[in-house]
């Protein structure tokens, strides 16, 4: 408490005046240690309540229209502990008093969970007379520009990303290709210049070459016809040639730049800790790597070059229009303003109908794909008519959205073209009058109309491109957001390399939760000796797999430390640590490739002989040689071409090949039949010799060979001992074994009855199915 007291005056300074006043009214002599503001009111509506904690009291204030008053005011000495209770969409602090029932203190939304987790830690520290974690206002950091809270996990305000910075970052990726960039700009300027020459040539043709001498009535400049035609051809040819070059250059620039971005993004994804992947869906990450980088490519290849080109064109043509006739240009502005308005406001409304159409189309294809790929299930349950009805519903929705789109498009499209053509009408009408008054030549009017037709494209493109570029920048921001993430697990600067190890693992008062407010491991201490085999047992959610994750340092403990041979895991080089650990998971993940490549994955420099020896030791060799392509057999996507037991044995071979000092078996023999389990058990027995082994087992009978069994419950060690000791103790382990034995009896009886029934149905008579291999399991055997 001493550290907290140092900050008393500070915390009181930070507290809002109305809150300080309210608190002092009830406890005038007490010093406020910390406070926090919630975002849900007592009536479960959006609103605020305030938690104010002094050395003696915890007070929650709520506010109505006229006053602020306490809803709870409790003495710290009266409580046992505080905890966070997660609900759906919100959370509450629950107080466990020394006497009486637990009660809810204050509620808050997901946005504030980390802050209130700190408040709970603080309250518990006060209760236990420990130093406070934090003092003063426990408030979210606010964005300096928009004043909204910054989500702690993002570290920056997602609302206020500066788009200029995003563009700057993209341009940094183009730095190695600076020369290409300069060339592209040069080519664009030249191409625009040639493009601008072509309408002007029509003025030359009409006003110069086709002009008759007013005296003789002859075409005096007819000799110029050939060279003028050649000039026009040259201008067209150069324009096309240069735009080809430009396409090539910007295409190559885009592909190169985005390949660099994609590589950097992928490197970052590989570097990030597992906690990052817990918070992001796989689909969303795939879309970052594939679609968003693709969007960035379109930005560099299409949008930016087209925008720059359109800008050059817009300026160039605008100058020509003014030179040819500034009076006419003023008239022309009327339809141009209308077109800009149309493109900016009417066309985006049309997008709704386009999107609705595309959306329904993709929904329909999803329904078809779902039903066709699941046709066995459809047929087995006789749901053909249900599927047909479902298809009809989506098909009609798709049809209707198509009809709606065509109707709207047929209205807007002609209107848009009418606007464009009205510009031409103005040119001929106003231009004609200017010709009559001698202010303009006929050639100038024709050239003018040519420029005008060219003028619409850059306007249209510039307005559209703003949206496109904005979208692509959003994609780029999402990519950069990932690149800016820092891995939570990093090698510290003083990380030590690990050479030979004994394999002693120590947990010292370790607490950990995937969410800080929900501890999965609670103040756990455990010593695992070198070469010892430990069995981890407990219900799902007891913290078994979390312990494994912590040993592998996929996460760091929130409190306490884990030591390997006396060295804190955080001080050991990650690559060295992982090279000492071999892991066989329940869901053996195989990568698309051959069996050989999959075994080799754990030790890429292993020889073929080593791989085969590992497969033999894992009892995998015998099934591999039965495959037509043996070790060259493709395992398919996620190993789908192999059975569960086969995948499991490859996974064991992988672990054997790595020759680790620490072996982790995470429910390695679950979900396989007894025959396969026996083979896997044999392989495991060979594997564990001379290694520290930690095995999580679903089938408790498989743990009989463990030196020690640790029974976990709610993140704590409930029991420890050998299989025999724990069975004699008749505690939690005994209960678990009993439940499992009863379950296997029920399953066995059900299965036998079902099979007997099926046989009866098939043969028309009752038949004793006989002894099943799986049926050997019973309570005595489990003991």
């Amino acid at each position, binding site marked *: 408490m001493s550290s907290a007291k140092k900050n008393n005056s500070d915390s009181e300074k930070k507290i809002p005046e109305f809150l300080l006043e309210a608190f002092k009214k009830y406890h005038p002599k007490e010093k406020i240690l910390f406070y926090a503001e919630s975002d849900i009111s007592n009536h479960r509506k959006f609103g605020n309540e305030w938690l104010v904690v002094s050395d003696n009291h915890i007070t929650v204030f709520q506010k109505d229209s006229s006053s602020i008053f306490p809803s709870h005011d409790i003495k710290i000495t009266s409580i046992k502990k505080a905890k966070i209770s997660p609900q759906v969409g919100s959370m509450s602090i629950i107080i466990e008093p020394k006497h009486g029932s637990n009660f809810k203190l204050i509620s808050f939304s*997901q946005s504030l969970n980390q802050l209130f987790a700190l408040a709970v830690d603080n309250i518990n520290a006060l209760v236990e007379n420990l130093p406070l974690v934090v003092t003063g206002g426990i408030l979210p950091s606010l964005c300096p520009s928009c004043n909204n809270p910054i989500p702690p996990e993002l570290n920056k305000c997602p609302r206020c990303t500066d788009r200029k910075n995003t563009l700057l970052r993209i341009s940094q990726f183009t730095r190695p290709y600076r020369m290409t960039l300069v060339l592209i700009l040069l080519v664009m300027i030249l191409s625009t210049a040639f493009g601008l020459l072509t309408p002007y040539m029509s003025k030359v043709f009409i006003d110069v070459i086709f002009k008759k001498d007013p005296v003789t009535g002859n075409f005096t400049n007819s000799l110029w016809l050939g060279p003028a035609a050649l000039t026009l051809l040259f201008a067209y040819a150069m324009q096309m040639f240069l735009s080809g070059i430009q396409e090539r250059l910007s295409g190559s620039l885009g592909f190169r730049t985005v390949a660099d971005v994609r590589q950097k993004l992928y490197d970052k994804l590989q570097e990030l800790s597992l906690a990052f992947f817990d918070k992001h869906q796989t689909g969303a990450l795939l879309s970052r790597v594939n679609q968003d980088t693709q969007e960035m490519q379109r930005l560099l290849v299409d949008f930016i070059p087209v925008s720059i080109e359109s800008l050059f064109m817009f300026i160039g043509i605008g100058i020509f229009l003014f030179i040819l006739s500034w009076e006419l240009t003023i008239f022309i502005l009327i339809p141009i303003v209308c077109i800009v308005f149309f493109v900016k406001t009417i066309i985006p409304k049309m997008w709704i109908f386009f999107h609705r159409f595309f959306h329904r189309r993709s929904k329909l294809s999803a329904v078809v794909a779902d039903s066709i790929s699941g046709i066995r299930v459809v047929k087995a349950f006789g749901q053909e008519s249900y599927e047909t009805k479902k298809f009809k519903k989506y098909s009609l929705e798709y049809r209707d959205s198509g009809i709606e789109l065509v109707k709207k498009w047929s209205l807007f499209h002609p209107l848009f073209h009418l606007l464009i053509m009205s510009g031409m009408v103005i040119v001929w009408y106003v231009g004609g009058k200017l010709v009559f008054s001698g202010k303009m030549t006929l050639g100038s009017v024709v050239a003018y109309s040519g420029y005008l037709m060219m003028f619409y494209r850059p306007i249209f493109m510039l307005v559209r491109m703003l949206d496109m570029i904005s979208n692509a920048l959003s994609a780029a921001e999402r990519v950069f957001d990932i690149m800016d993430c820092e891995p939570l697990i990093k090698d510290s600067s003083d990380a030590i390399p690990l050479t030979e190890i004994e394999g002693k693992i120590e947990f010292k008062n370790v607490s950990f939760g995937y969410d800080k407010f929900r501890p999965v491991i609670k103040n756990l201490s455990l010593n695992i000796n070198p070469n010892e085999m430990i069995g981890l047992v407990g219900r799902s959610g007891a913290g078994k797999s979390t312990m494994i994750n912590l040993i592998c340092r996929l996460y760091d403990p929130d409190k306490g430390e884990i030591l390997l041979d006396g060295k804190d895991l955080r001080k050991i080089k990650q690559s060295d640590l992982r090279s000492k650990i071999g892991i066989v998971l329940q869901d053996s993940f195989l990568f698309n490739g051959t069996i050989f490549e999959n075994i080799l994955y754990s030790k890429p420099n292993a020889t073929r002989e080593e791989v085969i020896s590992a497969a033999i030791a894992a009892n995998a060799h015998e099934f591999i040689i039965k495959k037509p392509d043996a070790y060259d057999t493709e395992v398919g996507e996620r190993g789908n071409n192999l059975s569960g037991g086969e995948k499991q044995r490859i996974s064991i071979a992988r672990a054997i090949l790595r020759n680790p000092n620490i072996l982790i078996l995470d429910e390695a023999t679950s979900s396989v039949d007894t025959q396969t389990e026996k083979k896997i058990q044999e392989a495991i027995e060979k594997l564990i010799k001379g290694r520290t082994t930690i095995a999580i087992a679903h089938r408790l009978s498989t743990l009989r060979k463990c030196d020690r069994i640790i029974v976990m419950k709610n993140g704590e060690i409930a029991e420890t001992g050998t299989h025999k000791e724990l069975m004699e103790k008749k505690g939690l382990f005994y209960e678990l074994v009993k439940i499992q034995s009863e379950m296997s009896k029920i399953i066995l009886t059900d299965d036998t009855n079902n099979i007997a029934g099926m046989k009866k149905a098939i043969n028309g008579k009752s038949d004793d199915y006989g002894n099943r291999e799986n049926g050997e399991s019973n309570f005595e055997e489990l003991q």
Partner: protein
Amino acid sequence: MKIIQAKNILFENKNSILSCTLDGKVYSPVHCIALFPLSLPEKYISVFIEKDQEIEEIGIINDLTEFNEEQRNIILKAIKERYFVPEIIDIKNISTKYGGRKKTGMCEINASTDRGPKIIHIFNPRENITLNSNGVIMITDIQRNRYKITNVDKLSEKARRNLDLIML
């Protein structure tokens, strides 16, 4: 599955602690959750107690209409207590700071919900606004808070148009 008849159970809420008496036995504190919170929010309500982080179900209420108003309100309050997924009843405005189409990037929804007004910030609506198979629109904001629109047809024409712009 143990179905609880309205006539056999009596709920009480004292000092924000919900308790119930079922067949003469008192359970406290009890909690209520809707088993189909999106499709049937007032039917199939599970009543349970929590013991050592484990849930022990007392039974299931089939339909809240079987209860009198006072009892129904107590149960509904208890459900609301646990289930904080505000229902959006109107969308006043959807804006994006940077212009451009709203389906990607950050957008800000100025909404009225059954839990009061709220400015909702959504990053990349294409991923964070989903229409689930029973027609309910689920919205997840940048801080993983969830909001729902149970019946989009009840929204105003303007609100639906705004939503279409970012959803489709």
